[in-house]
């Protein structure tokens, strides 16, 4: 689904006032953090493995042109086809062409954030092809016509009643009298319905977590097994992925896998980690006959050699949003972007343009938690700061805000003063929470709040709303 971030401030306020969403956030947030920590504690080498992961991704990106070439050649050797796509439009057109050539009516989809990024589902539908999401969370969102609110738990913002309601509304062939006694019944119904779709689909579309240059393999990681059914049952398998996912060889990929699931869900390993290389081989009794890779750039090559190059290390584990106080308060939809949370706040301005996404790099308290849990140590707060500076330079913000940012920069360059200032502000928040006006009178905290201020379409700033939310929690 293509989205826009311009309405962030209003959406954030809605999120904070949405009781259902707040219930879901309260349920999910502590769990994510606890599970990750438990997985980290079980593996004494975890910290060292993070450094290994950083090294591998940095090496791959510093030689990205080379490894992409090697990768593409290996895919072609294994009988696959690579479709190089500079833009989202190119990628959509490439997928449609493959589907048309296959005479596809129904397309099953494994979970893929890149297909969200390019707005693939709407496009296929408009062209007479029915895409069916098979990841349970993506499936319910497709029924409800909502975008994902989280990159690995796309529907975690929904409560059980909403699942039941949507299933009753859409699964008309089933008895309206049926009772959902427990969550398992919801799962069983979806499994039954999707089984039929899997068996009928002509094309299966998955994403990829990694691409392996040496062997031309794409790697997906799932817990449900839907990605595997998606790529095994139809006659044609299409991988929609992006250029920064390539690593040199299997050993590099395995090292990254050791930090991925632990950071994401707190599992030591996801249930299914699958390496796919080309189409069906001689003698194989199953598997797709055709294997395509739609390889998307969409602004990523423009990050190489800039301060945003570090962002290309991202392995989409979601740890940063799982630990982010702002995400935890407003939920994923408020960002109005494919990628929410801290990683999204860095990436979205790249994908949507800073004009459309300029609120997002401001949606940070600079607490630094995201960077401290990121398995590939992306300096997320710093990168958000870079965006703010760019936005500042481009005079996108009202004059009053630029003045505030200048003041903020002055303090930020003087760490001791800055820390005193932020501490004063934090203490002020705790002790004098009810007197919001007080902040404006603290010179140091004035710089602090000004730097985090937003143009306020609804008459109040995001941070005022956020502070209010924190008080009433």
């Amino acid at each position, binding site marked *: 689904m293509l989205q826009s971030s311009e309405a962030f401030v209003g959406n954030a306020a809605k999120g904070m006032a949405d009781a259902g969403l707040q219930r*879901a956030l309260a*349920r999910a947030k502590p769990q994510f953090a606890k599970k990750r920590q438990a997985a980290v504690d079980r593996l*004494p*080498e975890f910290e*060292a*493995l993070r450094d*290994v992961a950083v090294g591998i991704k940095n090496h791959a990106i510093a030689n*990205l*042109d*080379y490894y*992409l070439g*090697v990768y*593409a050649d290996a895919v072609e050797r294994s009988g696959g086809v*690579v479709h*190089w796509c*500079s833009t989202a439009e190119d990628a959509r057109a490439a997928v449609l062409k493959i589907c048309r050539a296959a005479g596809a009516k129904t397309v099953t989809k494994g979970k893929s954030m890149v297909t969200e990024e390019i707005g693939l589902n709407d496009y296929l539908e408009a062209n007479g092809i029915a895409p069916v999401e098979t*990841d*349970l969370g993506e499936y319910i969102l497709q029924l409800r016509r909502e975008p994902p609110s989280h990159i690995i*738990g796309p*529907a*975690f913002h929904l409560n059980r009643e909403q699942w039941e309601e949507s299933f009753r509304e859409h699964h008309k062939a089933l008895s309206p009298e049926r009772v959902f006694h427990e*969550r398992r019944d919801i*799962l069983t119904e979806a*499994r039954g319905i999707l089984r039929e779709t*899997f068996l009928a689909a002509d094309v299966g579309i998955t994403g990829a977590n990694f691409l392996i240059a040496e062997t031309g393999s794409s790697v997906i990681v799932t*817990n*449900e*097994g*839907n990605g*595997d*059914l998606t790529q*095994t*049952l139809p006659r044609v398998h299409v991988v929609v992925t992006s*250029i920064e996912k390539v690593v*040199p*060889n*299997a*050993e*590099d990929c*395995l090292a990254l896998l050791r930090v991925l699931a632990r950071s994401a869900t707190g599992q*030591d*390993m996801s*249930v*299914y*980690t*699958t*390496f796919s*290389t*080309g189409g069906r*081989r001689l*003698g*194989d*009794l*199953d598997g797709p006959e055709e294997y395509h890779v739609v*390889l998307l*750039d969409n602004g990523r*090559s*423009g990050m*190489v*050699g800039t301060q945003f190059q570090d962002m290309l290390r991202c392995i989409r584990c979601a740890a940063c949003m799982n630990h982010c106080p702002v995400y935890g308060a407003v939920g994923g939809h408020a960002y109005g972007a494919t990628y929410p949370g801290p990683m999204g706040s860095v990436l979205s301005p790249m994908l949507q343009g800073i004009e459309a996404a300029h609120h997002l790099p401001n949606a940070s308290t600079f607490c630094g938690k995201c960077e401290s849990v990121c398995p590939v140590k992306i300096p997320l707060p710093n990168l958000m700061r870079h965006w703010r500076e760019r936005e500042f330079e481009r005079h996108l913000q009202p004059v009053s805000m630029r003045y505030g940012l200048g003041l903020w920069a002055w303090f930020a360059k003087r760490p001791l003063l800055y820390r005193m200032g932020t501490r004063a502000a934090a203490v002020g928040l705790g002790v004098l929470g009810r007197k919001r006006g007080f902040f404006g009178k603290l010179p140091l905290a004035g710089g602090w709040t000004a730097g985090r201020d937003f143009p306020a379409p609804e008459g109040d700033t995001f941070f005022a709303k956020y502070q209010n939310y924190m008080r009433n929690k």
Partner: protein
Amino acid sequence: MNRDAIIGAIQRGLKRGSLPVDQQAMLAARTALHHRHLIPARGQLDAAGRVALFAQYVEREFGTVARLPNIAAGPEAITSYLAKQNIAPSIVVSPHPDLEQIPFRDKPMLQVRYGVATAHDAVSLQHAFAGVAETGTLVLPSAPERPVKNNLLPDTAIVVVQAKDILACYEDAFDKLRDQGAMPRNVMLVTGPSRSADIEQTLELGAHGPRRLHVLIIDGES
């Protein structure tokens, strides 16, 4: 062409053209070397430790394990497992030579079909190329004798793994794969039965793949 455009844009970012030939050769050598990065201590155990840790992790991830002295004990182990789970004694078996050796005629009550699973098969018997002790992971590369559907479609997956094939870490399994030749079309690393936590962050087993994963570890030679 888009390929040149994208590669060109990356090179502009890197502020260089194509890598010189000698540097390309260095990168090719690095790739082919299959250098192992840091392997956690739990991925470096001896044979006895590997089997024990593997079994422990399969169970931790909601699978079940039975250790058998040899493959001839398979039919008894399978029928008693299915009886205990209240599942009809009918299985689809991958056409792998090791599995074709199993003396199923000892158990005439068990219906056995060799081949590829369909949506109607409730139980499959699959052969594991290897196990990985590090996380209790099964390695299931596709091959004519190891169809992928048998890993996925049935509600209950029973997998045979030889104790000697339980390796310490994933890297050991990829070395073993490379010893056999080219990268197979599909290599599944399977850790426990299928699951989802998409409904209210609560774990439920059996999302799209098998709800039950039962691993038979064969101690002796087959």
